[in-house]
């Protein structure tokens, strides 16, 4: 479904990504793990169009999307849950969800989609008229994910969904990811919490300093000595 070929990106003179090759198949859940500053968020932003790649190609569903502006990548079917949620603080939960469905195709099915989200996330339904800025961390994450799902994406990008959340809430978030998978969504998830994320995905890539250092199935990576030592503390 998603294919990255030799994708490079930079912030001005600073090279963040070096010729990344990566792919995500329909229905899969793939993780990108790695330390801070590795370029994981940059990778997400390049895919969703917030940043233009310097070179390389990104193909989604048979179309090239690199170089497209982000709003046109959303219409192609990719939704991005940004790092630190980035909810609209002065909107209510419901308004955040509504704005997620801005694309005409989603707008047409607004009521249906809203109902579906409230089914998936009952806590959000309780708080639908509450200002998003006043939600707890876990609730904000749920709202951000729901907002992204409102556009009816084929591929969901999640940037560090567990960041800044209490351990109990982290577990809830990963349960959520599992549930989203069973709903049929394809997921690409960037995470620092290696332990938890490898439990919910099929495959993973290890990104360090802008390059892919390792790749394989989740099991393979979990068993890999380097990963065990550096990231799983074993």
């Amino acid at each position, binding site marked *: 479904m998603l294919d990255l070929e030799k994708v490079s990106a930079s912030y001005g003179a600073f090279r963040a990504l070096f010729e990344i090759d990566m792919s995500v198949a329909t229905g899969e859940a793939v993780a990108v793990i790695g330390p801070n500053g590795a370029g994981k968020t940059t990778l997400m932003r390049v895919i*969703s169009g*917030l940043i233009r790649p310097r070179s390389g190609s990104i193909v989604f569903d048979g179309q090239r999307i690199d170089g497209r502006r*982000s*709003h046109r990548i*959303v219409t192609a079917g990719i939704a991005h849950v*940004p790092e630190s949620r980035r909810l*609209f603080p002065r909107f209510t939960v419901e308004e955040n969800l509504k704005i997620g469905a*801005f*694309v005409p195709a989603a707008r047409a099915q607004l009521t249906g989609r809203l109902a579906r989200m409230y089914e998936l996330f009952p806590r959000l339904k309780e708080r639908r008229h509450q200002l998003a800025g006043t939600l707890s961390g876990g609730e904000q994450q749920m709202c951000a994910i729901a907002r992204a799902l409102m*556009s009816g994406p084929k591929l969901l990008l999640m940037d560090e969904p567990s960041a800044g959340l209490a351990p109990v809430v982290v577990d809830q978030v990963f349960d959520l990811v599992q549930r989203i998978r069973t709903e049929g969504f394809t997921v690409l998830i960037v995470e620092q919490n290696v332990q938890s994320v490898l439990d919910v995905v099929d495959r993973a890539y290890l990104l360090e300093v802008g390059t892919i250092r390792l790749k394989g199935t989740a099991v393979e990576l979990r068993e890999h000595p380097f990963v065990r030592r550096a990231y799983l503390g074993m």
Partner: protein
Amino acid sequence: MDIFLVEAMVNGLLLGGVFALLALGLNLIFGVIDVVWIAYTELMMIGMYAMFWLYAKYHWPFLAAAAAAIAVVAVLGLLTHFLIIGPILDAPPINQLLATGGLLFFLQSFATFLFSTEFRNIGLRLPTLEVGGMFISVARLLAFGVSLVGVGCLYAFLKRTYWGLAIRAIAQDRQIVGLMGIDARLAYGLTSAIGGALAGLAGCLLVLQYDVHPFIGLSFGPILFMICVLGGLGNMLGGLAAAFIVSEIIAVSGFYVSIDLSYVLAFLIFIGLMFWRPRGVFTR
């Protein structure tokens, strides 16, 4: 209470309506695009000239002329954004202020060039009502009423429509609106056009009360900026409240001292208030 004082207060209220309209436009643009159009009242001036041209010179019916004038200024707003602001969207604020300052120069002088510095009157005299010993001009009442309608329409647009929602979203987080499928450029254009239209509407209303000349923008501009800063730049409700409060201050003090002195007083109060609450008196 002295009936003339009450009359002054009423007139202040009525004037406040038009300032409310202008403040809304300026705050909308600032809230969404993060620029202050220094030349905003000059756009209003163009609207006034358009009214003069179409109504007084070419004898269009009033409403048609008004609609056209509003459209003209809306387009001017679009042009301002795409030609002037767009290229320097990410530049430091000083550059944006400089550029819109240049626009102010340009619009004023261009109007001087086309129409000379003479004061032009639209030639439409609306009656004056006598209410309980006070003389209230119908033009002022009309301006107030239409302004409120304009404010209401804008409110409805922002709260009830999807594009209104999008615009309110951009005002909160510009960088990720693309992720919602919102074309930011389009949203900016829409905002600029609405801002222009509001200025044009204000112009149509003011041309009923004032003669138009190239520098009329300077009579309203600084006060408008003062209002918006007091209310908190970008804060629409704050701007609304500030518009009426400042208009009242000017009207009431104008009753006791000369009109020029009343402006001086208002400005001094403004500077004082700014230091009490630098982010705007009404900011949350």
